[in-house]
C-alpha cells in the first residue's frame, strides 16, 4: 500500500466522517435533552435532501432561498413529530420509544418514495464549483472540502450554543434532571421541541450536502445506520464525542476497506467495519470515549 493511497483513504474518510459527525450531532442533541434514541435520524436527513431538491431543481429557487426553505420545512416537520408522536410516549419504556421512532422512519421513507419515486435524482446545478484541489499531493474535489468545512462549522456552532447560550444551558439542565430543570422555571416541553428542531435542521443540512455530492435516492437513510457506531463510539451524550466518533468511523472504515481489499481478497468490508469497531469499543469502554458514565444505586 503506497503512502499516496493511504492518504487518499484517510482524506476521503475524513470527508465522509464529517458528514457522519453532523448527523451524529443531530442524534446526540435529541438524546441529550430528551433521552430518546431517534432511529429515524437517517430519514430526517433523507427528507432534507429531497425537500431541498424539490425547491432547487423542481421549482428553480436560488440555492440560498432553497436552503432556508428546507430548514424551515425541517423545523415544522420536527415540531410535528415531537408533538404528535414523541410527546404521548413520555414515560413509556425505552423499547417502545425505539419502536415508535422505527415506525416513524418507515412512514418517512414511504412518504419520500410516494412523492419523489425511487430513481436517483441529481442536484442541478451543483451547489459548489466543480474543481480539484491538491491536499498533500492527493487530488480532492472542492465539493468535499466544502462539505468538510460546513460540517465542522455546524459542530463548532453547536458546541458554543450548548456551552454559552441560555437555551443551550437550559437544554443541558433538562438533560441532567428534568424535574429539577422544570422547578427552576425551564419549560421542558419547549426544550424537547427545540432539540428536535435543531436535530432535524442539522440532519437536513447534512442531507443537502450528501445529495449534492452523490445524488439522492431512497436508500439515503443508510447514513442514519452508520451514525449509530459513530455516536456510540463517542458517547451518546457528548457533542465532542459525536464529532470525533463520526470522523474516526469514517476514516477507520475506509482504512479497513482499503487494507482488506489490498491484502486479503475481501470486498465490502466497509459495510461491517463500523459495527465491528463498535462491538470492540463497547466491550472496552461501555459508555464510549466521552459518554457520561451512569452511576446507579439501589
Amino acid at each position, binding site marked *: 500500500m503506497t503512502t499516496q493511497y493511504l492518504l487518499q483513504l484517510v482524506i476521503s474518510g475524513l470527508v465522509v466522517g464529517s458528514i457522519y459527525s453532523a448527523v451524529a450531532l443531530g442524534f446526540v442533541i435529541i438524546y441529550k435533552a430528551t433521552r430518546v434514541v431517534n432511529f429515524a435520524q437517517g430519514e430526517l436527513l433523507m427528507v432534507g435532501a429531497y425537500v431541498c431538491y424539490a425547491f432547487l431543481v423542481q421549482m428553480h429557487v436560488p440555492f440560498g432561498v432553497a436552503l432556508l426553505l428546507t430548514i424551515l420545512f425541517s423545523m415544522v416537520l420536527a415540531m410535528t413529530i415531537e408533538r404528535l408522536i414523541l410527546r404521548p410516549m413520555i414515560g413509556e419504556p425505552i423499547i417502545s420509544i425505539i419502536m*415508535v421512532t422505527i*415506525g416513524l422512519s*418507515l*412512514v418517512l421513507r*414511504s412518504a419520500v418514495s410516494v412523492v419523489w419515486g425511487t430513481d436517483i435524482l441529481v442536484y442541478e446545478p451543483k451547489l459548489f464549483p466543480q474543481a480539484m484541489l491538491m491536499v498533500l499531493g492527493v487530488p480532492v474535489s472542492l465539493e468535499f472540502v466544502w462539505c468538510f468545512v460546513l460540517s465542522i462549522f455546524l459542530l463548532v456552532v453547536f458546541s458554543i450554543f450548548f456551552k454559552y447560550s441560555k437555551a443551550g444551558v437550559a437544554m443541558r439542565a433538562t438533560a441532567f434532571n428534568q424535574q429539577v430543570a422544570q422547578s427552576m422555571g425551564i419549560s421542558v416541553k419547549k426544550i424537547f421541541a427545540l432539540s428536535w428542531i435543531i436535530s432535524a435542521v442539522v440532519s437536513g443540512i447534512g442531507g443537502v450536502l450528501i445529495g449534492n455530492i452523490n445524488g439522492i435516492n431512497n436508500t439515503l437513510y443508510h447514513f442514519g445506520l452508520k451514525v449509530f457506531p459513530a455516536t456510540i463510539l463517542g458517547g451518546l451524550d457528548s457533542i465532542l464525542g459525536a464529532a470525533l466518533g463520526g470522523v474516526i468511523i469514517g476514516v477507520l472504515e475506509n482504512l479497513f476497506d482499503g487494507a482488506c481489499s489490498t491484502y486479503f481478497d475481501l470486498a465490502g468490508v466497509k459495510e461491517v467495519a463500523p459495527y465491528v469497531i463498535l*462491538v470492540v469499543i463497547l466491550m472496552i469502554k*461501555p459508555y464510549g470515549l466521552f459518554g457520561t458514565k451512569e452511576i446507579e444505586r439501589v
Partner: protein
Amino acid sequence: MQYCGDFRTTYEKDVKIFETPFVKICMGFLGVALLALPFLVKGEYLWILMQIVIAVIGAVGLNILTGFTGQISLGQGAFLGVGAYTSAFITAKMGLPFWVGVPAAGCVTALAGMIFGIPSLRLKGLYLAIATLASQFILEWVFLRWEPVTGGSYGIVVPRPSLGGYVFDSDRSYFYIVLVIAAVMVLFATNLMRTRTGRAFMAVRDHYISAEIMGINIFKYRILSFAVSSFYAGVAGALYGHSLRFVSSEQFGISVSIVYLAMIIIGGLGSILGSIYGAVFMILLPKLLTVVTTQLGTSFPGIAEVAIALEQGVFGGIIVLFLIFEPDGLAHRWKMIKAYWKLYPFSY
C-alpha cells in the same frame, strides 16, 4: 370463570397453567381447530398460517430475551438466519436428516447468541440495543460472504423433512410438524417462566442491582436468556428455511428484526400469550395491506407504484398508532376485555 377475583387455596391451584375447566375446554377446542385447519384452508392461506406458527416460535424467543429479561435485541432477524443456514448446511450439504438439522440449528444459534450476548456483561438498555444491531449487520455480512457454507448470494436449496419412507412434501403435512414443535416450545417457555430461572430473568429485568444483591448471578442469567432466546430463533429460522425450501441472505435483514420487535411490543412485553397475538397480528397485517394495495393498483392502474410505497408507510404508521394508543399491547387489552365481562355492571 371466577366472578370476584382469583382465590387460590392450594398450591396445586396456583401452579396450574389452565386455571379453570372452562379454559381447558377452550384450549381443547383451539387445539382441535388448529389440527383441522389444514383441511379447511388451502394454498396461500395455509402457507400464511404456517408462517404465523413459525413466527410464534421466534416471537416467544425474543420475548424471553426482551420482555422477560429486559434486554432489547435488534438482532433477532440475523439469529433466525443463523438457524436457517445451519439447518440448510446440515440437511442439504451434509445430507443428514431434518430431525438432526433443526435441533442442531437451535444449538448453534444458541451458541451464536451467547457470543453476541457477551457485551451484555457491561451494557444494558440502549447501548445493548445498538450492540445487537451491530450483531445483525455483522451476521448479515457473514451470510453473504462465507460462500462455502452459506452459498453466498446464490443461497441454498433445502429439502423438506422425511420420516421412514414418508416425505413431508405438502404444506399440509409440514404444517403439522411446525405446529407440534411450536406447541412444545410455547409450553416449555410458559413453564420456564414459572421456574427459578424464569423468575431470575424477571428479577434481572425489574432491577438488576437488586437482583444481584439477592444473589442472582446476573451475567449468567443474561447470557442464559440470550442462549434460550437464540435457541428459539434458531429453530424458527430452520423451520422457515425448510418451509420455503430455500435460504438466502436477504430473508434475514434488519426489517425482519424490526418486525419481530414489533410483534412482541404490540402483543405485549413479558407475556407468552402476547407473543402469540403479536405474531398473528404482524404476519397478517402486511398480507392484508398487500391485498388492499393490489386491489387499489388494479382499480386505479395509475397509482400502482404509489400503492406499493404506501404499504410500508401504513405498516409503520400502524405500529406508531398502536404504541401511542395501546402501549401495553394486545395481551393487556385482552385482559381488560375479560375483566370488563367479569365485573360487568360494576366496572368501576
